[in-house]
């Protein structure tokens, strides 16, 4: 008897490392950072445990400490054979080129893409759309979702859904969508926000902000129509494992890369 295999594109679980001065930290609603270790070590551990992808976000505020980023990227990329994205402080094409050269597969742009949307197109043309991610930090303001920049401190006046569409038109290959209202709370992703953006664009949407348990991932893949979901703190502090998480998602009929 032959077993009919049902194969399909799986939903991705992405481990996010927020890095400051070469060390992994994680904040609650962009505040109260805690040190959770060495990025290269954590990335390799997440990959071995079943992460589908790793994102490293450099949240270093000062220029002096920024110099350590390329070294961190190089060390992290060395032992990683799954997709690796780096974001934070990418202002021009040369910044992106240096990050790719250090071993990243994709870069994530945030503030710079809003200030200078031509940057999206420049990176997409030089390195391909698959390498150009636009990160959007969105917050509920007066009944709609507004895009914020500068670590969530500065409103842009841009509607997050319309901005996602524009980013796609300009060459973005994926949208990394963070709910600022949910980030660090552990009460679940903003499915309404995620669904609105996912329905508006034809490129993958990575949901971020608010993961606290497996059920939240089920919700954001079903109701939010996310293609991938990102989480940081729940993995760092041993609150859940990829194995547990992926097996629970498989039981809920969410296609997962597991075992891997």
């Amino acid at each position, binding site marked *: 008897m032959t077993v009919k*295999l049902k194969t399909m594109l799986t939903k991705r679980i992405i481990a996010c490392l927020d890095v400051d001065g070469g060390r992994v930290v994680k904040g609650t609603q962009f505040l109260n950072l805690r040190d959770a270790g060495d990025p290269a070590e954590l990335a390799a551990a997440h990959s071995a445990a079943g992460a*589908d992808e790793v994102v490293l976000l450099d949240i270093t505020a000062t220029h002096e400490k920024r110099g350590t980023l390329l070294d961190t990227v190089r060390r992290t990329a060395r032992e990683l*054979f799954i997709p690796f994205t780096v974001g934070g402080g990418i202002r021009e094409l040369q910044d992106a080129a240096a990050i790719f050269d250090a071993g990243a597969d994709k870069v994530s742009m945030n503030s710079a893409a809003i200030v200078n949307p031509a940057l999206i197109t420049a990176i997409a043309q030089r*390195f391909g759309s698959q*390498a150009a991610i636009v990160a959007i930090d969105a917050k509920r303001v007066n009944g709609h979702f507004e895009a914020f920049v500068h670590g969530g401190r500065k409103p842009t006046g841009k509607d997050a859904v319309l901005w996602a569409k524009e980013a796609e038109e300009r060459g973005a290959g994926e949208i990394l969508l963070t709910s600022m209202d949910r980030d660090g709370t552990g009460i679940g992703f903003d499915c309404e926000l995620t669904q609105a953006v996912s329905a508006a664009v034809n490129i*993958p949407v990575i949901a971020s902000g608010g993961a606290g348990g497996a059920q939240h991932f089920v919700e954001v893949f079903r109701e939010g129509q996310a293609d991938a979901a990102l989480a940081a703190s729940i993995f760092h502090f041993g609150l859940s494992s990829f194995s547990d998480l992926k097996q629970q998602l498989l039981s809920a009929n969410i296609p997962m890369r597991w075992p891997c």
Partner: protein
Amino acid sequence: MIAIVDYRAGNLASVKKALERVGAQPVVTDDPEVVAQAEKLVLPGVGHFQATSTLGDSGLREAMAQSIQRGVPFLGICVGMQWMLAASEEAPGVAGLGLWPEQCVHFPAGVKSPHVGWNQLEMGNGKSRLLAGVDTGAFVYFTHSYRVPLLDGTVAQTEYGGKFSAAVERDNVFGVQFHPEKSGATGLQLLKNFCQLSF
């Protein structure tokens, strides 16, 4: 010596690193003479099919075509695999190598494009040297908007808005639509197989 052919289309660091990981000492080159002397050739590719047109202008196309004819093992990755066909809808008028007469086509409307993420391989009935040790159901990482249809050389297929070629193989030529350098242990196995091929 394994040559990774550089035609200024994206980032080759990951492919080089993965080949080094499986014991090879690859050289990244845009020099047709180095390509002509290589014992094995890898043509990576991200981005647009249009970029492959520079292969013709630079003499790299001719060097690769002659090596392939001499039996040098050749591995095309992603757009590098697509270039092994005659053409692509993505860049009408840009000629591929024509190892198969078919052309690459866009994903049908109704599925998100690009196809990004981990999907599964379904092995064909024929034996694949490239995919030795890789079984049906193995997960690999894709990111592409155009795809190679099922061909007489298809050794593994994948489902996304219909079936397409995930891997092709004929004699000394091999192509994979996914990124072995980003596909964890499965990808490294495949690269190791390629490095160990002998003819």
